[in-house]
């Protein structure tokens, strides 16, 4: 089962690469009422305790494989399924301190059945979650 919020508590952790903390990971479920073709995604900005991380720098893991935003845009047949949380890997030297963090996500995607002037569709979420390590 997933948590109700777009921002999942489960999976919030620092990332270690070559022996040092290179960033952190966050899982998000789709805030939409259906899963979505990955090429419709236009990225997610992540803000933690006021620090903004740009969507272009964030990698997405869908169905077990990691992609850059560009790769999502160019993908065919790749989906962010309704029952599958995407993992966002955010680069930040040193990672985040253990403890509670105010996390915001701003997700953009295209919806074909809404007028052009409402594109991209933007969904925002905010949640205070705990990073253990």
């Amino acid at each position, binding site marked *: 089962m*997933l948590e*109700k919020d777009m921002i999942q508590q489960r999976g919030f952790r620092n990332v270690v690469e070559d022996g040092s903390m290179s960033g952190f990971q966050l899982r998000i479920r789709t805030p939409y009422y*259906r899963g979505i073709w990955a090429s*419709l995604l236009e990225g997610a900005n992540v803000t933690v305790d006021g620090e903004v991380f740009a969507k272009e720098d964030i990698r997405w893991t869908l169905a077990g494989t990691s992609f850059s935003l560009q790769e999502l845009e160019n993908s065919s047949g790749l989906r962010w*399924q309704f029952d599958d949380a995407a993992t966002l890997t955010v680069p930040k030297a040193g990672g985040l301190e253990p403890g509670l963090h105010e996390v915001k996500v701003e997700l953009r995607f*295209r919806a*074909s*059945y809404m*007028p*052009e002037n409402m594109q991209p569709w933007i969904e925002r979420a905010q949640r205070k979650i705990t990073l253990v390590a």
Partner: protein
Amino acid sequence: MKAKFKLGASLYCYVGDFTVTMTLEDCIADAVDAGAKGIEILSEAHIPNYPNPSDKWIEHWHEVLASYGAVPTCYDCWVDSRLRKGRLLTAEESLNFLLADMKLAHRLGFKIMRPKLGVISDDLLPDPVWREMVERALPFAEKYDVRIAPEIHSPTPLKSKTVDGYLDLVAKTGTKHFGLLIDAGIFKVREGRKLEPGQWADPILAIDPRDLFPYLPYIFHIHGKFWEVTEDLIETSIPYDKVVAGLVEGGYEGYLSAEYEGDRTLYRGSEQMRRQFAMIHRFTAQAEAAGK
């Protein structure tokens, strides 16, 4: 005169709870318990590993429906015209998506599919490739016996270029496999809810349900759209007494598929569903008594 329509539910009613507090089987069990015989799903929410569910899951789907005595009614899918950044899908590409969905809908036992089409204007005119896409899909629709019904949903009224276009295709081809799905939100007469700032709500069209009568031969399925049914069994925005009376008088024989789109607080969908069905039962009895 007796009501001829049948009762169903779209699992969209449970979107707040699905994958959080309810599995697919929970949704089906709950809908059937509330009074639904027909089950409608969203292809891109309810089918695991869409568009390629396993054969095992498809077998399981049929078993679960059979165990609850439920039948599949309408398969809701999308033609994502904006799939690629910077351009719209061609008619050929759109057709390929539609046919993939049609075949899957057929495997799952659905007789009606609702493709949500891409739009090209603020008043939601469908991307004109829809026409070639549908014409080329018709032989397959006949082969699989799956009828295609785009949805007429606020702000699109019955008297519109969109609907005229759809009915023109039916007239030109003589097909029995293309028609309309009506969303009961077109009968909304007031905004009955207290909305949050910036919250979207369907524009009020206040269409008289009896205006459906001339369209009935083309109406394959109806969404019993609702946002809030009070404890006194009144939908606060849509006059369901008139909607149900219209369906009884018009002799509509398809499914009235409950479609909750209100507050998504956990467990609320389930409660609201029951109020919706209770309300429909009450108004059906009323309409049948009045029609005697």
